[in-house]
């Protein structure tokens, strides 16, 4: 048996097949419980309220325990709060904190620490770029804009172990938001003492399964288990190393040299080799993100041309793209929202048609928009510099050319330039992607709201906005889902965006790493893993 691996989540088992290892030694824990993870870019900060990237998130999940945790499969389970209640109007959560919750320095985790932390995240002085995550909390947006003092936030400590959070409107996905680093607690005394540079070894006090031992910028971050963590006895891995390696080939070389046990990426051109030579190491699973083409609806040629936009969408053969180009098992996307809980995925009617039917209809719509073979649509495709985006842009322009006769010009820009061009709407068609912030349709739906700063197609549809606002005030989860689904149908019918495929997460994991389960958020907690003898 896997001694030392039991945890409160007894439902959790090793999802991977260890049959091939076999023998008694194959299921015994290794004497040295050290995990080496490749982690992409160098983290910008380990201050949970100022962090924004995926690499930061991976490390912060080990350092901090939120009120509501995730099981390895992504299901929400009690974390720092052992239980909670929701008022009948769906607006007041009362969290019961655990009695044995401890900071890594031994201090008890108190309700007031949470009040301090949530206020800090929204205080404009903190300069949190992800503060919007907490806007469902009462007065949060006004505080973040500097219109109200942080003390007015709808969060209070009823006693040391009882925390009350009041929301602006019922927010069914609120518990999921608590997983975001914006909702992580910071240790008030050490923040007060060390100011904005508290998130460094020696001064970072955290409440999760691990604590920050060492940080050599651009080299590694070392975490070691937090002896004061309430479930320390159930944690198996003693130390975790996070290596900032962005180059996928370098990651792969170090993985093959057994210097890494776990990677967050693979060199896509080596996929065939990986599948052939180490099939049991390669783990892929659906990931909460969509790769899409935005069409700028504020300018010609796409302004007021839903038919033309739809024609372009219909002319794209997503199966060819996912099979021949992206190639790692991505799912063709006809709808905007990936598979999320409590939501019926949408797709336009024509997604079920045959290729010939689609192309015929696309040609008709294209002609109706006033374009012919002699006078074709000329369109520019913008993408950020990358071989993969380029290949896709070439394929899409070829499909548009072949089916409709569209003339395209490809334009690539370096990342920051591309972001600016997109925001300023100096675009026609542009490649983009969106990874959901939480497991709910809303994280995708809100992007296309006319007031959303990220609505780079500049699409304005009042009935879409109204449906979203209605959904925001709906307590009945099923009715809410129906409203969001209807909104997505409006969106797909107008086609300001052309979904191409839904992302998948790709990992290489050594056979001796146990306890890993893929999940849609691609969140992994080292405390759930263990190292087998090898």
């Amino acid at each position, binding site marked *: 048996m896997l001694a030392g691996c039991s945890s409160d989540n007894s439902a959790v088992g090793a999802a991977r097949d260890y049959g091939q290892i076999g023998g008694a030694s194959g299921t015994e824990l290794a004497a040295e419980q050290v995990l080496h993870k490749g982690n992409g870019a160098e983290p910008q900060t380990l*201050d949970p309220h100022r962090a924004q990237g995926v690499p930061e998130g991976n490390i912060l999940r080990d350092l901090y325990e939120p009120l509501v945790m995730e099981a390895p499969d992504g299901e929400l389970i009690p974390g720092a709060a052992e239980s909670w209640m929701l008022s009948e109007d769906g607006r007041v959560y009362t969290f019961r904190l655990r009695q044995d919750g401890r900071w890594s320095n031994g201090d008890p985790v108190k309700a007031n620490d949470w009040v301090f932390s949530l206020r800090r995240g929204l205080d404009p002085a903190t*300069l949190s770029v992800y503060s919007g995550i907490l806007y469902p909390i009462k007065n949060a947006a006004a505080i973040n*804009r500097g219109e109200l003092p942080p003390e007015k936030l709808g969060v209070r400590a009823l006693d040391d172990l009882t925390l009350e959070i009041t929301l602006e409107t019922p927010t069914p996905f609120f518990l999921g938001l608590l997983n975001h680093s914006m909702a992580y607690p910071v240790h008030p005394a050490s923040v007060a003492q060390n100011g904005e540079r508290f998130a460094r070894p020696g001064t970072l006090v955290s409440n999760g399964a691990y604590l920050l031992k060492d940080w050599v*910028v651009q*080299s590694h971050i070392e975490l070691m288990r937090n002896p004061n963590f309430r479930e320390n006895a159930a944690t198996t891995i003693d130390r975790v190393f996070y290596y900032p390696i962005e180059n996928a080939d370098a990651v792969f*070389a170090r993985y093959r040299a057994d210097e890494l046990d776990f990677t967050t990426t693979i060199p896509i051109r080596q996929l065939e080799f990986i599948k052939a030579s180490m099939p049991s190491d390669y783990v892929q699973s659906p990931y909460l993100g969509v790769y899409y083409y935005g069409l700028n609806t504020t300018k010609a040629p796409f302004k007021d041309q839903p038919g033309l936009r739809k024609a372009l969408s219909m002319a794209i053969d997503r199966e060819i793209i996912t099979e021949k180009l992206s190639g790692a098992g991505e799912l063709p996307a006809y709808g905007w929202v990936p598979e999320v809980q409590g939501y019926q995925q949408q797709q336009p009617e024509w997604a079920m048609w045959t290729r010939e039917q689609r192309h015929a209809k696309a040609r008709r719509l294209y002609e109706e928009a006033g374009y012919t073979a002699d006078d074709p649509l000329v369109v520019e495709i913008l993408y950020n510099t990358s071989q993969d985006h380029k290949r896709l842009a070439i394929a899409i322009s070829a499909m548009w050319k072949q089916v409709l006769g569209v003339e395209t010009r490809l334009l690539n820009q370096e990342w*920051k*330039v591309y*972001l600016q*061009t997109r925001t300023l709407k100096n675009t026609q068609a542009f490649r983009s992607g969106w990874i959901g912030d939480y497991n709910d349709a809303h994280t995708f739906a809100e992007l296309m709201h006319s007031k959303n700063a990220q609505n780079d197609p500049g699409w304005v549809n009042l009935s879409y906005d109204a449906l979203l606002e209605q959904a925001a005030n709906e307590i009945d989860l099923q009715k809410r889902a129906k409203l969001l689904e209807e909104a997505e149908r409006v969106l797909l019918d107008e086609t300001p965006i052309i979904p191409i495929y839904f992302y998948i997460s790709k990992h290489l994991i050594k056979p001796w790493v146990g306890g890993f389960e893929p999940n849609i958020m691609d969140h992994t907690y080292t405390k759930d893993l263990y190292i087998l003898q090898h």
Partner: protein
Amino acid sequence: MLAFAFRRLLSAIPTLLVLLALSFALIRVAPGGPFDAEKQIPPEIQERLNEVYHLDEPLYQQFGRYLVGLAQGDFGPSFQYKDYTVTELIAAGFPVSLKLGGLAMLLALFVGVSIGTLAALKQNSRTDHAVMGVAMTGISIPNFVLAPLLVLVFAVTLRWLPAGGLGDWRNLVLPVISLALPQIAYIARLTRGSMIEVLRSDFIRTARAQGLPTLEIILGHALKPALVPIVSYLGPATAGIITGSVVIEQIFGVPGLGRYFVQGALNRDYTLVMGIVVFYGVLIIAFNFFVDLAYRWLDPRVKL
């Protein structure tokens, strides 16, 4: 000598100022800013960020502020790595790049001069052609081809050495070799050329006529003057190599300055890029100064 050093120091200041002004202007002209990201920042927070980092001020005022800070030894906070100042980042990255680059340069100098001399002595022989052929190949194969190849052979397949990261001396072997090989090739070619020229000069002929052994002629008489072109190459090359090679650092996961420089530019981390430019500029100026001193030692005819 002192007067020379003083003159050099004085002329360095305007050089640095021009360098600073140019790079400051260039990085600000580049579209996109340090806080642009896929996830849009709430406008109020964006405003406050601009205020805190003084990005809302006119450019000349920002430049003035930067110079004042710099005069006090303050490179400012990093826009990207929010828990660190630029000074801390440079202080962390430079020793690593210095160690790798320094070792690579020493290795390149020793091997390059040796084989270059050998080739010069056996001019137009098979040895010469073989050595120079290898050197040409060394110059032509880029780092980003050579380094992954070395990793594949020595780390992944043979498992003699680590594929990357920091650690003990074993971690240094592959990056140092990758850095040194093109330099070896270049130095060997330079040495061969200048050695051939020196060997034809009158004083060597005199030494030969006196019956001195070849080794003594080379080491005692020919080497010093033959090194002059190599030294002028070494100045900027050393400054370049010890401030880090982004390719080598990325492939081997080494936390040196080169990665900061490129990442800093991509992230529009204004302060970090400026900090490294200043640092690099000072190093180049310093190394050129050392080179001039070395000339005098190598060739007494040179007046400073």
